[in-house]
């Protein structure tokens, strides 16, 4: 009898001992995305990008099953922080990801640091973010990476004077600052730097002011998903007729919105790392599977960042042979190099910052649809602000 009990105890002890190991078979990835509110279109694209990646690569890597948990923070930083805590404490996620806006990433930083959980930044683009936590890894891109190429291009193509118009929030101010810095180093002059409130529905006054200053070019930046309103009013104000070139970062001619902007944006020049039109086998496969699993939606730069974000997580798990320890995962993410739908991607081993390829593109009509067609590759650019 006693033997029996002892045996039973031993068996249950054994069972208990193996339990954590069993739980470890699943690696949970907690994504904090703005699925509703102002940034909802960004959240939608990010979710769709993750879905496309999982459809293409399955949910198993290095012997582990990947479980993705998506939480909606409505684009409000306080909520993001609470959700991050819940994901870490209750759901025991091994990796955090997403983050639609800079303040959101900033709010989540301390949580990632304390919990020693890697946080993969897909959207937020202010340079300083990755310095806020040693567990931040960025797969998107930063403001200077986007603005330097277009500033260079403008200076090289006969633009002597420019006016900048940006949304009045951290990345907008970054865009303004880096455009001015680079453009003036190249001998150009920024006549005025205008900032429109983030929720501004009517840009009339700012655009008229820009037009009256008679620059060679007007540089625009608004968050992805909000370019349609701005471009509508830019076209309405007839800058072309005043011989003012309109240039922007790729956020303005977002793939998500481009088709609805109409032929008036034809010929507009922008800089960015991703266009759905990018000519490579990786991108063709990506666009195809993305459209298939997402109701024929066209991927934009958010979708590709989410796709690459999942890729980095899978790659890191492969490197650690399935070990989901936070420090080991971050270390494994550093220095990863791969062929993304955007082109060759790298995570800077020293700064955990993305090093994406950059392109100058022009809006053209292809197969009946509007696309940003890349015509000049500027190569990968390291973020210049990190020491």
């Amino acid at each position, binding site marked *: 009898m006693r033997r029996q009990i002892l045996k039973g105890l031993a068996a249950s002890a054994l069972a208990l001992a193996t339990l954590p190991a069993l739980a470890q078979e699943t690696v949970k990835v907690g994504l904090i995305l703005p699925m509703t509110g102002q940034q909802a*279109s960004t959240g939608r694209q990010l979710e769709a990008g993750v879905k496309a990646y999982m459809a293409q690569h399955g949910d198993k890597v290095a012997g582990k099953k990947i479980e993705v948990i998506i939480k909606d923070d409505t684009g409000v930083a306080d909520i993001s922080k609470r959700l991050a805590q819940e994901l870490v404490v209750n759901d025991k996620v091994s990796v955090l990801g997403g983050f639609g806006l800079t303040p959101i990433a900033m709010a989540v930083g301390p949580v990632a640091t304390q919990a020693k959980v890697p946080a993969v930044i897909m959207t937020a683009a202010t340079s300083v973010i990755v310095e806020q936590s040693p567990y931040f890894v960025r797969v998107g891109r930063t403001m200077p990476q986007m603005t330097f190429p277009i500033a260079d291009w403008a200076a090289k193509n006969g633009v002597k004077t420019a006016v900048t118009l940006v949304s009045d929030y951290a990345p907008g101010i970054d865009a303004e600052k880096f455009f001015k810095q680079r453009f003036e180093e190249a001998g150009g002059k920024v006549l005025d730097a205008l900032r429109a409130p983030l929720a501004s*529905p*009517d840009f009339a006054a700012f655009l008229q*002011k820009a037009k009256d200053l008679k620059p060679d070019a007007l540089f625009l930046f608004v968050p992805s998903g909000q370019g349609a309103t701005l471009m509508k*009013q830019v076209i309405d104000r007839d800058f072309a007729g005043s011989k003012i070139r309109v240039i922007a970062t790729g956020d303005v001619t977002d793939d998500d919105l481009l088709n609805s902007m109409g032929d008036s944006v034809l010929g507009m020049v922008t800089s960015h790392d991703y266009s759905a039109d990018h000519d490579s086998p990786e991108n063709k496969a990506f666009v195809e599977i993305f459209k298939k699993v997402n109701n024929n939606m066209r991927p934009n730069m958010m979708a590709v960042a989410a796709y690459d974000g999942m890729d980095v997580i899978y790659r890191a798990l492969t490197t650690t042979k399935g070990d989901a320890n936070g420090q080991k995962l971050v270390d494994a993410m550093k220095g990863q190099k791969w062929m993304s739908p955007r082109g060759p991607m790298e995570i800077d081993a020293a700064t955990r910052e993305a090093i994406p390829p950059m392109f100058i593109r022009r809006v053209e009509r292809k197969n009946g649809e509007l696309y940003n067609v890349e015509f000049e590759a500027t190569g990968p650019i390291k973020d210049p602000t990190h020491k």
Partner: protein
Amino acid sequence: MLTILFDGVAYGMLLFVLAIGLCVTLGLMNFINLAHGAFAMAGGYLTIVMMNRYGISFYWGLPAAFVFSAILGAVLERTLYVHLYTKSHLDQVLFSIGLVFMATAVVDYFMGANQQTINLPPALEGRVNFLGASIGVYRIFTIVLCGLLTIGLQFVLAKTRFGSRLRAAVDDGRVARGMGIDVTKIFALTFAVGSGLAGLGGALSTGIISMDPTFPLKYMIYFLIVISVGGTTTITGPFFASLLLGVADVAGKYYAPAVGGFIIYTIMVAVLILRPQGLFTKASR
């Protein structure tokens, strides 16, 4: 600077058409309908769908948006709003803000979360020179249309039998009922017209700005500013308030871009301190 003035007036006119329905329900029917913007959004999206999916002309989109939003308003008034006329203002606010969130979710589900725009007919595009200032044709179109609407509304309210019945119903519903005026019907009709005007405003604004599911929330603040500055007892009050805000907003952003965004709020605060009953309303007895 004439261009700035014109832009401001056009923006103000647009605000007026968007907000006038709310003035009517709030001022005349004493009902706080924060979901007003949702009717504007319905009109805007209807125009977008008609133009982009079915290729119907913009000129048909405008009346269609009016009719669609008016019917939507009438149906909701009969089924939902009618139960809340006698409830407290807090109930009305909570109810209508709930409607806003539902409208946002519904539009998000069917239309997607991204901004959607239309391409105006060529006749309304471009710019013309007027006294040396370059003015967008569409802004002139907006000003003329909204101006005509205002005159029409003022006429209906002040000169027609319906107008006097409405004013009677508002002044004292019980007595009006006793005099044989069908107050319920008048309120339903007024509500429908107010919603229809919002729909028309929404359709008109697709030509300048774009539609996205957060439209009712984004614009709620502007409606409320127009009403608090203009008062709710007349049509002329909100009309001049809209113009003042439109011009102040655009001119402020032009001449002082750093503080431009705050100017309309400053005006609102000043008006609320100096004339809490509204800029164009006689002080209450």
